[in-house]
């Protein structure tokens, strides 16, 4: 069979299907740009579902992330956050959480303070915005409410007892109960499968009934994040009604439901809003020219050639494939862009894994200018039509600083703004 060649022309091509890529699509569509998003899924299934802005600086947990950003700009002027003001970052964050709430997964409004969100280990995490299905957990922890944590035998790495024991000192009113997940007794459980089993109302009552039976006056019930895939807020509300207590989800080991939900929602909703989405295919080659770039993808039945007047790289780091390391050094995989990196492998990682300063390798990445354009070795933009956002950027440590979502959203906002200005100016 002869392979077809399909050609697509677009204003902005966004490469990468993680949080930064989807955020960029939302911002680009909002600006009325003709937008295509390409590339296979990044590390989005690894998210807890919590959207951090800035949770930790110098090993210290931050209560006020906005003041933290001001301090960060002073301390780390090369950090991508330093390219934007707090008003822009706040606007970006709000547009993003409003947009996903509109598309079907409600998130709490970003406020002035960090929330103490719950991790399955029984440790609290500073974050800015959480899914509505997880928000009651933040409240329960803040108020120390009488709370029952439920876990399921067969769901690996989620122990209600571990959660309770580690929170016990600050949250004594916790109790735990292990119940068999109805319909999946005596087997290994996968959160994604459980979530889909709760999509239909008839799947919910047997679980609700079991929880009701062990409630014992608990005001809140916490359980692993499995409350539905496509309409979690509806499943959540219905389960609260059935159980007769406030209910919240707690993140699980990946691949985890909160990230899969986001990905499926973006893939479902954004094309309806005008995005040309080419998911699950990797861009094999890109050519940069004076008028834009051509991106090549090989599908199962056809080849694709996307001509774009501007391109935004949101290809992520090593796990997502945007960066690659060999014994000699790091490289950017799609265009061979220069990567800012520590000199020599001995400087990549510190000797102590959990050194509070973080590893220097995590701060390697693409150097960009104020318009989020990758720079060449001489410090000039590689191409006026090329932009970058998200974890691929240098001078940040999103894991340790608890700033992954904030970085993805803010940099996508800044890069799309710059791309729109360039496209509108050169149109």
């Amino acid at each position, binding site marked *: 069979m002869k392979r077809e060649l399909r050609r697509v022309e677009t204003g902005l091509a966004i490469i990468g299907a993680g949080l930064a890529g989807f955020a960029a699509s939302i911002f680009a569509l909002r600006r009325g740009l003709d937008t295509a998003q390409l590339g296979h899924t990044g590390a989005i299934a690894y998210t807890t579902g919590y959207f951090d802005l800035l949770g930790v600086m110098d090993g210290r947990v931050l209560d006020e992330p906005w003041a933290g950003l001001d301090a960060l700009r002073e301390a780390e002027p090369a950090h991508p956050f330093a390219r934007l003001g707090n008003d822009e970052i706040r606007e970006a964050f709000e547009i993003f959480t409003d947009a996903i709430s509109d598309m079907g997964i409600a998130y709490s409004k970003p406020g002035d303070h960090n929330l*103490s969100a719950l991790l*399955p*280990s029984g440790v*609290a995490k500073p974050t800015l915005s959480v899914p509505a299905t997880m928000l009651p957990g933040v409240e329960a922890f803040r108020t120390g409410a009488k709370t029952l944590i439920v876990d399921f035998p067969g769901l690996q790495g989620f122990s209600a*007892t571990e959660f309770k024991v580690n929170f016990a000192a600050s949250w004594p009113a916790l109790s735990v109960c292990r119940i068999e997940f109805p319909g999946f007794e*005596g087997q290994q459980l996968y959160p994604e499968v459980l979530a889909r089993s709760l999509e239909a109302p008839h799947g919910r009552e047997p679980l609700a009934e079991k929880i009701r039976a062990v409630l014992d006056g608990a005001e809140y019930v916490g359980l692993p994040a499995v409350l539905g895939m496509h309409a979690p807020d509806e499943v959540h509300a219905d389960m609260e009604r059935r159980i007769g207590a406030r209910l919240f989800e707690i993140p699980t080991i990946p691949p985890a439901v909160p990230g899969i939900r986001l990905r499926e929602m973006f893939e479902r909703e954004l094309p309806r809003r005008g995005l040309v989405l080419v998911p699950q295919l990797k861009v094999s080659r890109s050519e940069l020219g004076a008028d834009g770039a051509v991106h090549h993808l090989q599908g199962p039945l056809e080849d694709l050639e996307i001509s774009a007047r501007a391109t935004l790289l949101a290809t992520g780091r090593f796990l997502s494939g945007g960066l690659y390391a060999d014994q000699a050094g790091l490289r950017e995989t799609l265009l061979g862009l220069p990567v800012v990196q520590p000199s020599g*492998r001995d400087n990549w990682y510190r000797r102590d*894994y*959990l050194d509070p300063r973080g590893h220097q390798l995590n701060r390697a990445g693409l150097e960009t200018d104020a318009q989020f354009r990758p720079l060449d070795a001489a410090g000039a933009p590689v191409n006026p039509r090329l932009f970058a956002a998200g974890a691929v950027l240098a001078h940040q440590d999103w894991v340790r600083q608890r700033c992954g979502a904030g970085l993805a959203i803010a940099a996508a906002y800044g890069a799309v703004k710059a791309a729109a200005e360039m496209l509108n100016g050169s149109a």
Partner: protein
Amino acid sequence: MSGHQGAKRHYETEVLIIGGGVTGTGIMRDLALRGIHSLLIDRQDLNAGASGGNHGLLHSGGRYVAADAETAAECRAESELLKRLAPECIDPCGGLFVAVEGDDPEFAARFPDHCAVAGIPCEEISPTEARKMEPALSEKVYAAYQVPDATVDPFRLTLQNVNHARRLGFGDFLPHMGVEGFDIEGGELKAARCRDLRSGEEVLISARQIVNAGGAWAMNIARLAGCADVNLIYSKGTLIVSNTRLSQRVVNRLRLPGDGDILVPGGTVSLLGTSSVTIEDPDDARPTIAEVDKILAEGAVMMPPLADTRFIRAFSGVRPLLMASGAAEDGRKASRGFSLITHEDQNLSNFVTIAGGKLTTFRLMAEKTGDLVAQRLGNSAPCATHTVPLPTENAVGWTEPGFAARDWYQRADASDMILCECEMTPQSAVDAIVSDAPGSEHHMSLQAIALRSRVGKGACQGAFCAMRVTSHLYDRGIYDSPEGLELMRDFVTERFKGVRPVLWGRQLPQMELAETLHCGLTGLDLLGAKKPGSGRAS
């Protein structure tokens, strides 16, 4: 999980053995078979030193024929014994010695004669045949010999030693017990003053005989007894572990031992080594990037596919080498033989140090030590370790690659969840270790379980299984306080030391994911971090 400060615990035993390596545990078993009770202690846990930091090679002796015929002959005799008496611990995979273009042809040509002197069977094969047997061998191999090298699981060996002694009712093991001094009276060590390093508690151990099998720490221990007659040099050896098994047999470079000249299969992986770097402090032995790069560059000359292989970990062990008077301080040239130091000329009548030696000759070392200790105690029972097979049982089998998977498959119990997916280690294996493995009399941590199984040894190097096993231990009530998370932090921190030098290529994204899980999802980097305002956040 913590003991009471100040309350002094007291133990009495016939023989106190210091050092839970293969030698110390071998002595424990040797004595038990003679009906002598011993108490074995280690500052850390079993195999914490060189017994856990080696390539698991059961030497035919071939590697030493040119430099040390006596050690070579000992290796031959002992490896033949062990193959017969501890078959579960051994993979009789065979070995090749190969010379690559550029290697000294005369050295290669003399090899069969050297082997003959030491009584080691050695068969010349053509380079073509060698490459047929081991396709990863370089085209530049010009000479090859086959010898009866084998591999041994040093963890299983140690566990079986301890297990046999305790099943005989003549041995107990106390981990995390550090010696701080000795009570000396009338030319005898009356007791060892120790500390339980987990609880901080002082412990006194009285014994009629005290054996120092401290390996690289034997000189420090001897000095605590006022003995200046143990002189060691510390030779650090570093190895790297690949994600897959690259050869069926042990492959040795046919030249004097050097960096990156031996590739040893270890179940589903291969180990490439070894460096030899003289260090000052045996506690400071971690693999470096420079060593890894050198080993790999040398190894790839012999086996070119090594250059594109994924490595999952590196580790270092310290060879405690006996310094003969006047010998040059060169780790490779120092004797690989062992020495039984009676300390009688130090005016002590009940102290003995066993030092030097090799994994392959541990049984012989234990026999010689056992002979002396038995004679001093007036026990005339002869050594039995050269005739009595080393018994095995389920509780000590989990370090063998594939053992847990086979066991799990045979049970066919769908509710028995796999905790470590890389190495297919299920809950039932962890439960068996916690309830029945040597050391299970005491508190078991994730690290202790990993030592007694394959947990954390696969490609993910603990990224996922550390979380899963920790949760399981909380569920089982083995962990009942926030210390469980600290123990998980200790475990992943320890794994990282070995992973750090091999982080590039496909192993680096794995590390990136691990950090996301351990920090982002578990908050291990924030344990004990300062809390803002309300004090509710951790």
